[in-house]
């Protein structure tokens, strides 16, 4: 590092040489000869920097910020000659203890920097903490010199994404994963070939911001097994990757390991999206621990009732005050940091509707945070995806403030597809909306089908296998007498609750899984697949596995052998989507810029049956000019039968010179259930109708025969 003549100590504290720091950026920054520390609090009266040798029980030194080092509400200081790799740091803040006014200062507590870029204390997953540690989760310094070579975020068009939602630990923690470092970022890296073979081009990682798996940890009353804050939807530090997810975490190298994972995924054409939790923190309500925000500036960071209690729109004890200008800036800084420093491609915001609430909790018509994120230059090409509801009753699917940028987890897609598949009445008209990207929800305000993240399953709720194996949730293992978890799964067990040896039922379940995957990947909008659904992963009917570090969450890789037909089916469906731009258009069919139409059919061609009793729907996707003037673009046709018995579907006429080919038929056993795109089976010239089995579907491709 250069030695600069204009950067010298001006103050001294014991053996430590200091000078007034720079207010920006907040957090710690390595500067010539030293480290710049900067932290703000709107209501503290004094601030002390506390330094530890790594892992030491008592501080190495406490350095009060001299008065001259405060600018506005920001304390900033450079300390020279610090051995940044051996240091951990925290702060003490002095100020009023006046809960009714929202203030909870306590200078006996050592506080974590909200901008900490690395956090020690939970660096080895599941290692029981020292509960007497005076500063359990400690901020560390990070040197940002990772060699990215020519990598940058991939900027894959949103319409082309196939998202795979996964949990870092669950993906490879199972012994059958056969990786050197199970349950880590390095473990994911070892499985990149699997992701490539499947064909997904975006992984959405459940929370990887530092969290504490021991938050509310407790032994299971039934089994005695430890239950953790496993999923991690409870942030301790927004700028630090979860060290316990890194094989190198115990060496303090989680930053490098995670960056390396991003770089390798990018090298393989796979984007990285982070599931981010800005709606609440790990500090809980007034009975929770004081780790950071509560002790730094409680009134600013949290939404408080007029009496000074915590609003609980998150269902997790507190609510981060995201539309306070200070917190808003922190959220922006955080996302910019992950986009710029970690090359992250997009973010999915947990309970995002909270981000649109005013400090008093009321929903805002024009929430400044959401607007800032939508127009931020660093985030300009990042995907922004909202879970468009919160635990306080705000449900904004279709109406989330989008600013032309935001996409939404389409919860209605999930519910409607499930209800149609299990055979509910009156679902055909709404299926038509969902299949074409939900224009009823997104066909206004200049939004398009890419506003809709289509999913049938996600980490919340049943897996796809369980959706067709259980009528009811079975959450006894969570230790709350089966009270937790949702009750609106719209599932159907196909005749027997849970596992069965009945071959017919098992065949039906496999068919239902394939039906769901086929509809998902044929729908307009962005498909999202839950980790393991391509292998028939089960949670044994548990629809809320947030606390289990065991086989309820871990992906069992022996399923690859046992359920290879599901893997193959999923892989070919993804390949079909990639092969046909018709399935990935950014416009609704039949509108403005769309060169293609969707034409609805039923068991009779050109005549869809929209009635209450209807269980059959077919559609054809075609470019308007297909078959004319040299345009030989294939035509796609899908017939879905959710009736229990087989139904003949009359096939529509094709352009002259086109012929029908069978791509998928879920009523056939593997390997005849699906073909490779381009290798579809030519149908007889005289076929005028196609028999689709009960609770099955078929996908046909119409194209000139010369293409085979």
């Amino acid at each position, binding site marked *: 590092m250069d030695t600069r003549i204009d950067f010298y100590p001006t103050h001294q504290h014991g053996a430590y040489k200091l000078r007034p720091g720079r207010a920006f950026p907040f957090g710690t920054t390595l500067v010539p000869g030293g480290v710049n520390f900067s932290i703000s609090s709107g209501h503290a009266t004094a601030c002390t920097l506390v330094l530890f040798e790594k892992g030491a029980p008592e501080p190495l030194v406490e350095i009060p910020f001299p008065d001259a080092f405060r600018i506005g509400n920001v304390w900033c200081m450079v300390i020279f000659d610090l*051995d940044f*790799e051996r240091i951990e740091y925290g702060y003490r803040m002095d100020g009023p203890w006046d809960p009714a006014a929202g203030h909870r200062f306590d200078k006996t507590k050592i506080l974590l920097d909200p901008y900490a870029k690395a956090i020690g204390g939970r660096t080895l997953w599941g290692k029981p903490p020292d509960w007497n540690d005076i500063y359990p989760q400690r901020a560390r310094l990070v040197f940002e010199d990772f*060699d990215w070579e020519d990598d940058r975020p991939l900027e894959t068009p949103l319409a082309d994404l196939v998202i795979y939602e996964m949990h870092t630990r669950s993906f490879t923690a199972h012994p059958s994963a056969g990786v050197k470092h199970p349950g880590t970022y390095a473990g994911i890296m070892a499985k990149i070939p699997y992701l490539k073979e499947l064909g997904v081009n975006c992984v959405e990682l459940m929370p990887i911001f530092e969290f504490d798996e021991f938050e509310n940890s407790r032994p299971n009353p039934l089994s005695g097994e430890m239950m953790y804050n496993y999923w991690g939807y409870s942030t301790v530090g927004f700028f630090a990757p979860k060290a316990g997810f890194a094989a190198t975490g115990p*060496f303090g*190298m989680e930053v*490098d*390991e995670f960056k390396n994972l991003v*770089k390798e995924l990018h090298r393989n054409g796979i984007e990285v999206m982070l599931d981010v939790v800005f709606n609440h923190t790990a500090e809980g309500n007034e009975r929770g621990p004081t780790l950071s925000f509560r002790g730094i500036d409680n009134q600013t960071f949290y939404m408080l009732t007029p009496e000074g209690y915590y609003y609980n729109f998150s269902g997790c004890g507190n609510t981060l005050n995201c539309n306070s200008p200070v917190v808003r800036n922190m959220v922006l800084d955080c996302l910019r940091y992950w986009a710029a420093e970690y090359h992250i491609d997009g973010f999915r915001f947990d309970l995002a509707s909270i981000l649109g609430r005013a400090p008093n909790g009321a929903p805002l018509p024009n929430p400044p945070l959401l607007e800032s994120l939508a127009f931020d230059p660093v985030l300009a090409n990042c995907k922004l995806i909202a879970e468009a509801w919160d635990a306080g009753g705000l449900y904004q699917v279709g109406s989330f403030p989008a600013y032309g940028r935001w996409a939404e987890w389409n919860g209605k897609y999930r519910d409607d597809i499930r209800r149609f598949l299990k055979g509910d009445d009156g679902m055909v008209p709404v299926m038509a909306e969902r299949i074409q990207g939900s224009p009823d929800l997104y066909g206004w305000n200049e939004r398009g089908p890419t506003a809709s993240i289509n999913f049938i399953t996600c980490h919340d709720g049943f897996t796809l296998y369980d959706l067709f194996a259980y009528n009811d949730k079975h959450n006894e293992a969570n230790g709350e007498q089966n009270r937790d978890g949702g009750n609106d799964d719209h599932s159907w067990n196909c005749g027997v609750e849970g596992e069965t040896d009945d071959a017919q039922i098992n065949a039906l379940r496999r068919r239902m899984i394939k039906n769901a995957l086929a509809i998902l990947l044929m729908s307009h909008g962005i498909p999202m697949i839950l980790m393991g659904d391509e292998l028939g992963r089960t949670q044994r009917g548990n629809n809320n596995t947030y606390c289990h570090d065991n086989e309820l969450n871990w992906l069992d890789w022996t399923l690859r052998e046992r359920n290879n037909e599901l893997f193959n089916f999923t892989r070919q469906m993804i390949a079909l989507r990639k092969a046909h731009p018709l399935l990935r258009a950014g416009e609704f069919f039949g509108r403005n810029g769309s060169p293609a139409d969707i034409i609805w059919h039923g068991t009779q061609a050109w005549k869809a049956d929209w009635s209450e009793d209807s269980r059959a729907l077919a559609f054809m996707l075609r470019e308007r000019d297909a078959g004319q003037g040299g345009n030989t673009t294939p035509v796609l046709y899908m017939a879905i039968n959710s009736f229990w018995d087989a139904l003949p579907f009359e096939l529509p006429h094709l352009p002259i010179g086109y012929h029908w080919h069978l791509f998928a038929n879920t009523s056939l056993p593997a390997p005849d259930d699906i073909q490779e795109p381009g290798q579809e089976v030519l149908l007889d010239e005289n076929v005028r109708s196609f028999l689709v089995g009960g609770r099955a579907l078929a996908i046909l491709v119409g194209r000139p025969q010369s293409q085979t």
Partner: protein
Amino acid sequence: MTLSINVEMKDREAWITLDGELDAAVAGEFRQAIEQVAPQKPEKLVLFVSKLQFMASAGLRVLVFAKQQMGREVSIHVVGASGPVLNTLHMSGFDQSVYVQESYP
């Protein structure tokens, strides 16, 4: 446990042998060794690490520093890494930027 460092120039190659544990406390010494050979403009930097039992991120940092100090055209060879040292190189992805080999030449 301490670190012992042996530096020698072999024609246009800088050979550095490390023995012991390379943690933050001694990373500075390693860095000084790099700084010592850099002005001699070696074409290759060869690190013999078979007796190195542990390398913390501080050690990797020095490798990053070496790469920056010497420029992209200088190749860095890490020879004889095993156990935790090799793991650290793999997991941090640093094995993509240097040549990891069992023996040299």
